[in-house]
C-alpha cells in the first residue's frame, strides 16, 4: 500500500472518538483497525452479526464459524456478542451505529454516495451498504481522490446509481480531508506535500477553502 494511503488510513482512525460503535467497510476502511490501540474504548460492529470484533486470525487459528461481513476470519474480545441479521441491522437503522467508514466510486458535493453498482460492468448487489450509508449517525468515506484513470471521484453530482442520498459527512483521500457542507465540499486538511492547486485539479466540483493555514496529515 502506498504511503499516502497508509497516512489517510491513520488520519481516518483519529476521527474515531472513545466510546463509539463503528462499522468499517470492506477495503481501505478495514485497515483502520490497525490504528486503534489495545486500550482504546471502541466497539466494532459487523453486519453479519457481531459486536466487539477482535484481531483477524491466520488460517491455522481461525474459527470456521466466525467471520466479518467481508469474509475475514476475526476473533472475539472480552464482551463480544453474536446476534442474528435482523438484530444487526436493527442496530444500524435505529441509530446505534455512531460511525461507518465506507469506500466509494463517487461522492457528490451534496453528500450523495455511489459505491455499489457500475451498470453493465459491476452489479453484484448492495449487500448491507445501503443501510450503513443511510442510517449510521456519521458516514465517512475513505477513497483515493481519483480513479485509476485519474478521473475525479468527488463530483458535482454522482453519475452512478446511488447507495444513499446526502449521507456523506466527510471524505478522507490520499490528498485531503474534505467535509461535505451545506455549501458543498470544504477542504479541511492536506496530505503531506500536496498543494491546494493539486486537490482542486483532482476534484470534479467546487472546493471551498478555509481561512488561514491548512493543517497537514
Amino acid at each position, binding site marked *: 500500500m502506498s504511503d499516502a494511503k497508509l497516512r489517510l488510513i491513520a488520519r481516518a482512525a483519529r476521527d474515531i472518538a472513545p466510546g463509539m460503535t463503528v462499522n468499517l467497510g470492506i477495503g481501505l476502511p478495514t485497515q483502520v483497525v490497525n490504528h486503534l490501540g489495545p486500550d482504546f474504548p471502541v466497539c466494532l460492529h459487523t453486519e453479519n452479526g457481531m459486536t466487539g470484533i477482535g484481531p483477524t486470525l491466520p488460517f491455522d487459528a481461525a474459527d470456521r464459524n466466525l467471520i466479518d461481513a467481508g469474509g475475514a476470519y476475526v476473533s472475539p*474480545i472480552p464482551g463480544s456478542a453474536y446476534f442474528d441479521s435482523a438484530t444487526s441491522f436493527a442496530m444500524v437503522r435505529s441509530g*446505534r451505529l455512531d460511525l461507518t467508514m465506507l469506500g466509494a466510486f463517487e461522492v457528490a458535493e451534496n453528500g450523495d454516495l455511489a459505491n455499489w453498482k457500475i451498470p453493465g460492468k459491476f452489479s453484484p448487489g448492495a449487500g448491507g451498504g445501503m443501510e450503513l450509508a443511510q442510517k449510521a449517525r456519521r458516514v465517512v468515506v475513505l477513497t483515493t481522490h481519483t480513479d485509476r484513470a485519474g478521473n475525479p471521484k468527488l463530483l458535482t453530482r454522482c453519475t452512478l446509481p446511488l447507495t444513499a442520498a446526502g449521507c456523506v459527512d466527510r471524505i478522507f483521500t490520499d490528498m485531503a480531508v474534505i467535509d461535505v457542507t451545506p455549501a458543498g465540499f470544504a477542504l479541511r486538511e492536506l496530505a503531506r506535500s500536496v498543494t491546494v492547486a493539486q486537490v482542486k485539479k483532482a476534484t470534479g466540483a467546487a472546493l471551498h477553502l478555509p481561512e488561514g493555514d491548512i493543517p497537514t496529515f
Partner: protein
Amino acid sequence: MKLPDKTTTMESAIAAIPDGATVMLGGFGVPGTPFLMIRELVRQNKRDLTIIKNDANETGMGVDHLLVAGCVRRLITTHLGLNANAIRMMNAGEIEVEFCAQGMLAERIRAGGAGLKAIVTDIGIDTEMGAGKPRVEVNGETAMIETALRADVAVLHAAQADPFGNLCYAATARNFSPLMAMAAKTVIVETEKLVALGALAPDHVHTPGPFVDHVVHIPELSEEYAVVRR
C-alpha cells in the same frame, strides 16, 4: 481495542430523565419489572410521564407506585386486569390509557427498535381495536398500518450484565426487555449481577451492549421481586 464501561449509579441515570418523557418499562407481571428503578423515578418525583409497559403490575407494586404518586399522564399497555387502581384512575380520567393487543405492542416496539416506520398487520382488523387505523392493500389483502413505537428512555431489569451493557435475562423475565432495549434513545439497565467483560458467552447474550447506555448494579433486591403468595 477494549469495550467502553457504562456503569453508573441509579440516582444519576434516572436523574437524566426529564419530566414529560416517554419511558418504556420492561416486565410482564413481576418478572422483568425494574422495581428499584421505578422507586427511584417516584423518589425523584418525575411528572407527566408516558409509560409503555405490558401491564401496570398489581395494586401496590411497581407501576402502581408511579400512578399513585401522580407521575403518569399516559399509559400504553395491553392489560390492567391485576391493578384495580389503574382501572379506577383510567375510568376517572386521571390517566389516559391506550390499549394494544399484546403481540402488537411487542411488534410496534420492535419496529421502533429496528428503525422501521410501521408494520402492516391484520390483527384486530374486525374489532374495535382496529377501528380508525389506516388501511392498505398488500398482495390483494386489506391490512392496517400500525406505527412503530419509540421512547426517550427504556428502563430494564437484567439478571446479568457486563460493564459494556451486554445483557442476559432469566426465564420469562425476558419478555419485552430485548425489544425495548432497541427502541429507546437512552437505555438504562439495573442488573442483579454485574459480571466482568468476557464472563458472558457471546452466543448467550440476549441484548448486545451497543443498545445499552447505562448499567446500574443492584446488589440487593427488594421484596417486590420475590415470589408473590396468592
